């Protein structure tokens, strides 16, 4: 049917999920409700002003959600930024009443917000975490306090724009209300588009784990900064909007208590979603604004609500909706699979019975290997230089312990280099040194003439060195596919703006990232878990997904940290095949493992470490014949027998 195909194409292009209608129903109902509120609650001009005040605050909630809910940046003091933007806009209007309209106010507000966000965010970025929360809260306290004393901004009484000669807003009444709601809708759509773009993916990756993000080349400082900047600009814009609709701003218009209210709204609604903060904020701010008879007691009610949610329902109300829709069986995501069509959808349905934070199910473990041969994965990142990776004289100590001492190692492209040794022999340290998660105390690591050891870790990843972790690091709330996509996005060039705004190159690269990630996961036999949240995957599957992510970078070198631990025999075979396939494709593989027979069966070269020093380096055959290794490492006096 042409109609539904066209609809499918459209939703594909935008990256939508047309079957999750309950999740969509909530925001749609909310927006419709907002549009018709004046019909329901009265449309006198004072009332409308109150509605518009709440709506401006909703834009702040959207902004805060981007930074906090997705980016993990707790700029609770975003109300300070809002105030800076508002003051900027109202001052501009005060001195140029004829030239400044809604648009100008929003722009000036946005600019003011950006500046405010930078001042507060930059220093606290280095320490992050609750430092940022507290410092920004203090700023939220300081700004109104300073404004109270500053005559230029009207001190305690503020600036009444309605008293300024010549200021006459062009839009008012119902027309204005309609525009304001539309702006809230626009902001929400923007945040949705951002979250589902490469920018949003970076935020979530960084929020999950800085190590994870670094390993796929994400620059953490820059990403955090953009999260703060984007949300600050939006909050400042909300300030301009507020000023236009209220025609007034005073220190009391934004306070620390207000910041806490916002936080309450977001927590109750559910921070990890687009709609959650909206709903929560409508509830909280609505109560605060319109149920004033007991306003004195509001703090107690909100405080208890916030506490209750933080302890018992940290995922908020929207998480309940997701669970509900899962239970009703209407939330089956549609897999746009390249090879497995309906099978993907069926697997999606099977997964629906799981609660919102499901436990690993054996059903998602791999039971058979895919029959098809693995496709080639020739290097893309770092492919310009075909030199091997050379470690020379590497040394690293921790406290009084020398973890790695005078280490030499060469990773040749197209070969598998096994690294074995007992616990504490320095294997993982060496991997961390190569991937630049640790720094060298002495020695060098280079590829050709380029030195790696003086570059930041994300640059090392970008130059084509992928790695996995001893314990797989995945974004647990994202699906397997969504975990692999950011790695591809690193490679396919596109600006953040194009990706967010779905400009042609953005749409193209979004889709390319989706398809390439899908290909790799399917090649590894993981098509049945593509749409499953990573938290539902058992250990072995998680490991394979992490390997898929490393492969998705199309690196020149892959460093695998004990990939075999805890895997079933089928999964083990898959890992071995993947390593061999990588080598065949021209990638240099470093395989750290305790499973000596596995290493001996696929490695071209083996290095054995003992207490940070190199005990042996050579071919597997030579290792088997070497009694020294056998006695020191394995503690036996006869040479290693040949593996079966």
């Amino acid at each position, binding site marked *: 049917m042409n109609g539904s195909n066209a609809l499918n194409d459209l939703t594909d292009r935008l990256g939508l999920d047309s079957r999750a209608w309950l999740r969509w129903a909530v925001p749609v109902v909310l927006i419709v409700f907002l549009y018709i509120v004046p019909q329901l609650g009265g449309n006198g001009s004072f009332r409308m002003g109150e509605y518009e005040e709440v709506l401006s605050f909703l834009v702040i909630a959207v902004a805060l959600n981007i930074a906090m809910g997705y980016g993990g940046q707790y700029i609770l003091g975003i109300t300070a930024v809002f105030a800076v933007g508002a003051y900027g806009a109202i001052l501009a209007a005060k001195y140029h009443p004829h030239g400044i309209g809604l648009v100008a106010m929003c722009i000036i507000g946005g600019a003011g917000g950006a500046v405010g966000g930078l001042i507060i965010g930059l220093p606290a970025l280095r320490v992050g975490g609750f430092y940022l929360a507290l410092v920004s809260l203090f700023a939220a306290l300081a700004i109104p306090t300073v404004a109270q004393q500053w005559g230029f901004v009207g001190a305690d009484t503020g600036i009444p724009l309605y008293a300024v000669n010549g200021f006459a807003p062009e839009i008012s009444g119902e027309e204005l209300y309609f525009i304001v709601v539309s702006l809230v809708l626009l902001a929400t759509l923007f945040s949705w588009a951002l979250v589902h773009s490469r920018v949003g993916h970076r935020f979530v990756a960084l929020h999950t784990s800085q190590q994870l993000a670094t390993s796929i080349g994400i620059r953490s400082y820059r990403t955090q900064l953009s999260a703060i900047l984007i949300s600050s600009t939006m909050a400042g814009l909300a300030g301009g909007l507020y000023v236009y609709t209220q025609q007034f701003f005073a220190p009391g218009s934004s306070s620390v208590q207000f910041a806490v209210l916002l936080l309450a709204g977001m927590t109750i609604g559910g921070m990890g979603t687009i709609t959650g903060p909206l709903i929560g904020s409508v509830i909280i701010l609505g109560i605060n604004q319109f149920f004033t008879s007991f306003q004195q007691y509001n703090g107690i009610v909100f405080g208890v609500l916030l506490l209750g949610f933080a302890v018992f329902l940290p995922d908020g109300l929207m998480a309940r909706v997701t669970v509900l829709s899962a239970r009703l069986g209407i939330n089956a995501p549609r897999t746009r699979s390249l090879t497995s069509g309906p099978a993907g959808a069926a697997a999606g349905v099977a997964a629906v019975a799981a609660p919102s934070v499901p*436990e*690993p199910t054996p059903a998602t473990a791999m039971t058979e290997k895919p029959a098809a041969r693995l496709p080639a994965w020739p290097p893309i990142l770092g492919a310009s230089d075909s030199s091997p990776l050379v470690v020379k004289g590497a040394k690293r100590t921790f*406290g009084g312990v020398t973890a790695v001492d005078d280490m030499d190692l060469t990773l040749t492209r197209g070969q598998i280099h096994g690294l074995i040794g007992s616990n504490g022999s320095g294997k993982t340290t060496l991997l961390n040194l190569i991937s630049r998660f640790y720094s060298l105390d002495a020695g060098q690591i280079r590829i050709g003439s380029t030195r790696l050891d003086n570059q930041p870790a994300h640059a090392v990843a970008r130059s084509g060195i992928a790695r996995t972790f001893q314990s797989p690091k995945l974004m647990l709330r994202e699906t397997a596919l969504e975990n692999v996509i950011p790695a591809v996005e690193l490679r396919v060039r596109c600006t953040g703006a194009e990706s967010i705004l779905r400009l042609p190159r953005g749409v193209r690269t979004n889709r390319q990232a989706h398809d390439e990630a899908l290909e790799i996961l399917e090649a590894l036999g993981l098509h049945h878990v593509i749409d499953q949240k990573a938290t539902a995957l058992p250990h072995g599957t998680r490991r394979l997904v992490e390997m898929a992510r490393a492969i998705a970078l199309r690196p020149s070198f892959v460093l695998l940290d004990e990939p075999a631990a805890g895997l079933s025999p089928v999964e083990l075979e898959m890992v071995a095949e993947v390593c061999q396939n990588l080598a065949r494709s021209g990638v240099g593989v470093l395989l750290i493992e305790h*499973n000596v*027979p596995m290493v001996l069966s696929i490695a071209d070269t083996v290095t054995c470490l003992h207490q940070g020093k190199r005990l042996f380096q050579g071919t597997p055959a030579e290792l088997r014949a070497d009694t020294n290794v056998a006695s020191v490492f394995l503690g*036996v006096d006869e040479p290693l027998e040949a593996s079966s």
Partner: protein
Amino acid sequence: MSTAIGAGDPLLVVSDLHAGYGSLQAVAGISFEVRAAETVALIGRNGAGKTTSLLSIAGLRYGKFPGSVKLTGVDVTRATSRQIVDAGLAHVPEGHRIFASLSVEENLRLGAYTRRRSGRKAVASTMERVFDLFPILRTYATRNAGFLSGGEQQMVAIGQALMAEPKVLMLDEPTSGLAPIVIRTIYDAVAQLRDQGLAILIVEQSVPRALANSSRCYVMERGRIVISGESTTLAQDEHVFAIVRGTEEVPSPARTS
């Protein structure tokens, strides 16, 4: 140490122990015992379930699973880790973990936390015995434990566990990553403790080392005990080496999930 216990009495009796994480069964029903004045080794590949078993016995529970643990005849299956220490068990987890910002002396003293009411002299005399066992710690008594080498930290960790005057001592890979001479020191100390009547259970990565320093040995694979026997007998058994190295698959029932 206590003289009311006769050599050969089973001090730690584990029956059908299960443990796991969520739906993952890491330990699928193991039974063994450790007697007074003996050292028992528990070996197996990484991921076989050895560490989880020990943590489970020590009271860091992983859910409610079937099975039982008895310490000197007292059932401690559902006991808290505090009660287990009081019942006479001390567990030294892997990784020579100590309180890095505290001094060696403070670390040892904290090991006697559960005995703090028995008076300063009693605690001091126990500390003396620990220093007799590991003389080098006496020289480092006031130094921050974080600045010691891995082997010295391991001695602190073991000493700390001994401060509670346990009857059963469990050590998880006590010598991993340590120099041969330190390994010798630690195993000599273990032998001394055994001679004093302690029941000792050691998880060891190196099969020959495990067999050389124990009188009996259990081999774990995929959450179960697959081989057990006298260490001298097992030292001749090719299968043991093969299983631990992973070159041989043990035909075992499908892993429960």
